[in-house]
């Protein structure tokens, strides 16, 4: 697959402390954890390299303080990395002038914040039209556009409301609308739903998927909720103490964790929702059995069928060719994976 790279981060470092640039230089841009600790620096992001492909949803995950927000802010240059390069559509973002940056942000980037970050003195309409306003668009044109986006996120009729008159979910819809008003290519979302109740969060995730299916943006999405990541992600990057420990599809993370940390992290995920028949099948057994399942069926879907019957099921691909088999044994092993370690 030859995907187009939208944003490319190369060896990003972000240290907090007294003179981080000097310190990095002295350690050849590669200080060890020990050295960082001894010199009283806080490593927010360490040597992170990652590409974001056009049109994909990349989810960055990790515990609180693992550097997710910092990495995201380096991508939009809200924060200047201590070291490293960021390419946006092939151009070095860190070398861009103030004016070029403003231009990129005005037309190509949109961002949604954890605590909504709405301007309290503006109505919903004015908030959504704000990015257009700073570009200098005429009032009629920008309010028309803002009304369209407000409709898109389902807040029609609330245009004249002030943020404090809206619920959390509604406020975040305004946040989504604002970030979409300029039709950005890249959409950054920093834990957009984690300040919301679980029920509303689900609803907003669906909303998000609906929007994405229409808009097809390039998305970098931060969360620390694995369920959310699995629902939304094309690829997931897991961060641990500033390092990106693994990048891959959700299945890859579960079936081939790069480190113990990732394995531990993914341990509690409901596998049935994520793994498909192919990833758990017995590849050696290619006998054609009477019952078959498709290779892409999620375990969730086939579990009761397999568990109820005593027989073995063939796994077939799209051309109905048998590529393996599943039985109760494989299923149980996959569903209760943690037992493997013991």
């Amino acid at each position: 697959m030859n995907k187009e790279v939208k944003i490319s981060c190369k060896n990003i470092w972000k240290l907090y402390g007294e003179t981080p640039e000097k310190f990095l230089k002295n350690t050849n841009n590669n200080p060890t954890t020990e050295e960082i600790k001894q010199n009283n620096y806080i490593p927010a992001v360490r040597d992170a390299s990652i590409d974001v492909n056009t049109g994909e949803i990349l989810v960055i995950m990790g515990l609180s303080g693992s550097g997710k927000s910092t990495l995201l802010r380096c991508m939009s240059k809200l924060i200047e990395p201590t070291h490293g390069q960021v390419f946006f559509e092939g151009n070095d973002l860190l070398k861009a002038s103030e004016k070029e940056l403003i231009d990129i942000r005005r037309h190509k980037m949109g961002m949604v914040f954890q605590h909504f970050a709405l301007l309290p003195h503006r109505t919903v309409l004015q908030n959504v039209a704000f990015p257009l306003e700073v570009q200098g668009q005429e009032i009629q044109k920008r309010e028309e556009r803002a009304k369209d986006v407000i409709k898109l996120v389902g807040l029609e009729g609330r245009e004249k409301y002030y943020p404090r008159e809206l619920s959390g979910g509604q406020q975040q819809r305004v946040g989504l609308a604002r970030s979409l008003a300029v039709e950005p290519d890249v959409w950054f979302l920093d834990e957009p739903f984690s300040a919301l109740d679980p029920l509303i969060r689900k609803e907003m995730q669906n909303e998000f998927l609906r929007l994405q299916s229409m808009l097809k943006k390039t998305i970098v999405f931060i969360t620390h909720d694995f369920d959310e990541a699995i629902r939304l992600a094309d690829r997931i990057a897991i961060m641990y103490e500033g390092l990106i420990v693994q990048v891959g599809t959700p299945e890859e993370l579960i079936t081939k964790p790069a480190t113990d940390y990732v394995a531990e992290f993914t341990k509690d995920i409901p596998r049935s929702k994520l793994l498909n028949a192919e990833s758990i099948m017995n590849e050696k057994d290619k006998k054609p059995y009477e019952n078959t399942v498709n290779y892409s069926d999620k375990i969730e879907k086939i579990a009761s069928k397999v568990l109820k019957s005593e027989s073995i099921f063939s796994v077939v691909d799209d051309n109905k060719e048998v590529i393996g088999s599943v039985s109760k044994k494989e299923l149980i092993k996959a569903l209760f994976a943690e037992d493997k370690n013991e």
Partner: protein
Amino acid sequence: MNKIKTILRGKFFFIFGPFIFLWLLRYIIPNYTISSKTPHWAYIPPKSCLGGCGSIDGLVPFVDWTNALIQFLRKYEIFGLFTFRDFTRGIANYVDKFLDFTEAVLHKGFPSYDVGPLPWIFILTLTIILGFYLRGWRLALLGGTCFSYLILFSKRGIWELSMKSLAAISVSAPLAALIGLCLGILAVKRKRFANFLWPMLNILQSLPHFSYLILVVIFVGIGTKAGVIATVIFAFPPMARLTILGLQNISQEIKEAGIMAGCTKWQMLFKVEIPAARSPIMLGVNQVIMQCLAMIVIAAFIGQPGLGHDLLIRLQGLRLGEAFEIGVAVVLIAITLDRYSQALALKEPERREGNFLKRHPYLCTSIFSIIICTFLVFIFPFFNEYPKEYTISASVYLDNGIKSFTRSLFVPLGIFRDWMLIYFLMPLKSIFQSMPWTGVILFVGAIGWKLGKIRLALTVMLFVFFIASSGYWVRAMITVYMVFASLVICALIGIPLGIWASKKESRTKIVLNICDIFQTFPSFIYLLPAIMLFQISDVSAIFAIVIYSSIPMVRYTVFGLRNVPQQIIEASITSGCTERQLLWKVKMPLAFPEIILGANQTLMFALFMVMIAGFIGTVDLSQEIFRALSFSDGGKGLIIGLCVAFIGLTADRLLVEWSSQMKSKLGFKV
């Protein structure tokens, strides 16, 4: 619990250690009495002749130096074109232009166009509508009452006086707010400027008013415009402070949202930052207005006409009834302006939909009532100028009332006053007067050292050294004595009151409201009851100081007690504490740091009030400042002002540090 006890015990020990040392010093140094002509150098700093023995007799002739600097600024021509004084006077003339306008609108009229001043009916109606718009009928009622009072009781010209004062305020308040806003923004955007501005604000705010006044007289002159400039200098620091705080406290996310929308720097400032910080900024405006009001009496000292001027004359002539009437006017204006500007600060934009009339109801009502009022004014002269024969005055009755009241209380009050003087104030005064300056320097140094900060210790020692070497040590110690005596009484009144108030939600509310109202009174007002009750003496000065500066003591005690975490209280109740144990073993120790901060504020208030009380003849630094004012001795005024400021700053540094250390030991966030 034990932890708290050990902390307290440790602190008490080191507080008393230096005191004991101080007293021992008394026996080490021989032949000392206060009255001896040449006291030992360790007690009172020697005089020196460094500056050629001018009028000043300090160890270091700061006053002469300052006067030389002032002289230089007066005479020296920048680029050979104009002097610094020409420059300041030029600015003052600009201010005068604005003043001409507001004065014309409010009380002089525009004679050249044959237009009179704004008729009272306009002011009254618009105030009421504004009250409705800002918060509702209560506020409108307050505004209406205030202006009705001014109109009704105008027998001795209260209305005109008020308009004069308001004309001055409506120039000085916007000017101060604007200056404060700009400086605040600059400080937030330029770190280096902030490093310079912050200590300047500290000193500016702790300098007593009267030291500015002299400089203003020298560089600007006297009259309304001088008053306005003095007011601006005094009123802008809180605005700058609140602007800085407001801008710094904007959530990072909102700023990032602005940047991501592609704002330029100016768009950021005007479309994101200032609107997002509008509440603190508007509270700054509120502060500015209150400071301006506090200044209307003080500016009268340099010839600003208005309510303050007349209040002052009446006070001096002991015409208490009339003074009282004017005092009520000042208080009403103060409360009204305070509540209005507070409401403005807290006002959230409201959603209104529909046609123009529905969207802008208040605007429409205003326009409508302006039209009606205009008709009324043209048809009935009554509405143009309120006729004198309908005005009233209660001053005669008030005078009689006050006289019979004080006469009936003359004996008990006299006994109380004498008792206070003989058994409390005199002994305390002699203790403070006999304190050796060397000992005091060591004392504050020891506290600073014990608090663990070498820099702190050196700073406060330097402050005290400045006071000692300026030649006003004895006077300064009298000021310290007055402040200390007031502090003790304030604590005795304020802490129990605070404890009582914190017991129930309803009481807390009432007490805090009363505190709010008292705090809006301009300081000179407090002299009224003091003179009424105790004539002119140390006791009346201390009485005025105490009522004014008990407010923060009560406030902080209540705040500290109510902020004790609920879980801790519940844990103590379940472990079987009685009400009394809960208070003394749990709540008080936890609220102690807050109470210390209250004491600190009380001290600042008291120091401020001591200077005002100099007006009724105390013999401390304030008297010297008044003297300097009447001789236009700028250097002296400024140096004494700095002495007062340094007394305040010394206490402030130590107490705040102590409190914050205690807080962090108790595990509160500082």
